[in-house]
């Protein structure tokens, strides 16, 4: 757990007045506010830090304590007392307080340093006695699956905040796709509706195929002689091997489409994308004397 220089966070002098602190805070809050920086986790982290710095420096009591003990906070008896008192009280329900539009309520709004020094709680950003709380908090979760996992529809049970949620994951879900599970977020306050649970899927592709939606792409090497004379090759698809005819005179970079051999289309049962193969003609290396001689014979025929 590292010491946090709250003055540095807000970019103000240690002798800064309350007005200067407020001004610096407002300026940084406008820049890093999560609602103004959608899908930017870094901005959210910076915002929380700015929020925390303001929480301490704009409160004369907290600021005094922070200034007094500063870097020696770990050894201060007072902090230990505060910590003990906090653990006895337990965390109050709205500890994290502030809910971002798509942010999880489980994310801590204050650092370990802050908690050790001042205990849990804290009013949260822009409190002024009024906090946005009526509808329950939205929760975010990430689920990592392999590409083959999402080739078929599957059922999983997730445990989110102690509750088991049965989830049907449709085949063909995309990497980075987020689904909303309505009403499975935090409970509403004073009759407000519950928040929602957002699950973002991280699909790990450890196959030889590249994926774009329901279409798959793969590069296949074919021997030079087969490219020139034509023939048959065997190619791996996601579900097994297929035999393909290679036309005589196939050029490097030729593309072939295998209809319906791609990935399942999301929420379109029984429909599949296509598999696109790109042929790479493999140049023979380490020729035997006989093979070299045959190529030399070819050369004499003025083959171009």
């Amino acid at each position, binding site marked *: 757990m590292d010491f946090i220089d709250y003055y540095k966070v807000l970019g103000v002098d240690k002798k800064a007045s309350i007005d200067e602190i407020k001004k610096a805070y407002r300026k940084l809050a*406008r820049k890093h506010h999560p*609602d103004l920086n*959608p*899908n930017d986790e870094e901005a959210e982290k910076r915002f929380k830090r700015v929020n925390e710095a303001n929480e301490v420096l704009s409160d004369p009591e907290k600021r005094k304590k922070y200034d007094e003990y500063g870097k020696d906070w770990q050894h201060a008896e007072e902090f230990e007392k505060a910590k003990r008192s906090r653990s006895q009280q337990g965390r109050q329900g709205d500890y994290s307080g502030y*809910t971002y539009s798509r942010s999880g309520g489980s994310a801590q709004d204050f650092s370990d340093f802050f908690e050790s020094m001042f205990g849990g709680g804290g009013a949260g950003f822009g409190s002024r006695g009024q906090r*946005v709380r009526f509808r329950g908090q939205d929760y975010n979760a990430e689920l990592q699956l392999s590409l083959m996992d999402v080739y078929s529809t599957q059922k999983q049970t997730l445990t989110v905040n102690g509750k088991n949620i049965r989830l049907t994951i449709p085949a063909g879900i995309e990497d*980075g796709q987020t689904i909303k599970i309505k009403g499975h977020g935090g409970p509403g306050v004073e009759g407000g509706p519950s928040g929602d649970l957002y699950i973002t899927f991280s699909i790990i592709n450890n196959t030889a195929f590249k994926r*774009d939606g329901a279409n798959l792409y793969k590069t296949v090497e074919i021997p030079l002689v087969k490219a020139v004379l034509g023939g048959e090759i065997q190619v791996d698809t996601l579900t097994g091997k297929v035999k393909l005819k290679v036309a005589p005179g196939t050029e490097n970079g030729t593309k072939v489409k295998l209809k319906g051999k791609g990935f399942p289309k999301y929420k379109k049962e029984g429909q599949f994308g296509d598999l696109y193969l790109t042929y790479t003609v493999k140049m023979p290396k380490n020729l035997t004397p006989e093979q070299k001689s045959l190529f030399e014979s070819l050369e004499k025929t003025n083959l171009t």
Partner: protein
Amino acid sequence: MKEEHYISIKTFCERHGVRESFVYSMYEYEILQVEYDEDDGKLHVEDLPLLEKMVRLHNELNINPEGIQAVHHLLSQVESLQQEVTSLKKKLDTLE
């Protein structure tokens, strides 16, 4: 639509400490829909996350309703561009 899917504007404003005129201005700027039950305005719960975001921008950053309309418009564009970038990155990945 079931009644439980709506929240009265009055209740929402009491909980959030905002004036009803703020919510109606969001309606005027076409940021959200307002339904009427006789004379009482009500909000669909699906619109609550968006409205709560607007309340935060208003309360926490002192942005007035006109500013919120502009922010809303620009954020929609940002989100649309982010989706486009993600989609193009995936396409680029298949070409590499």
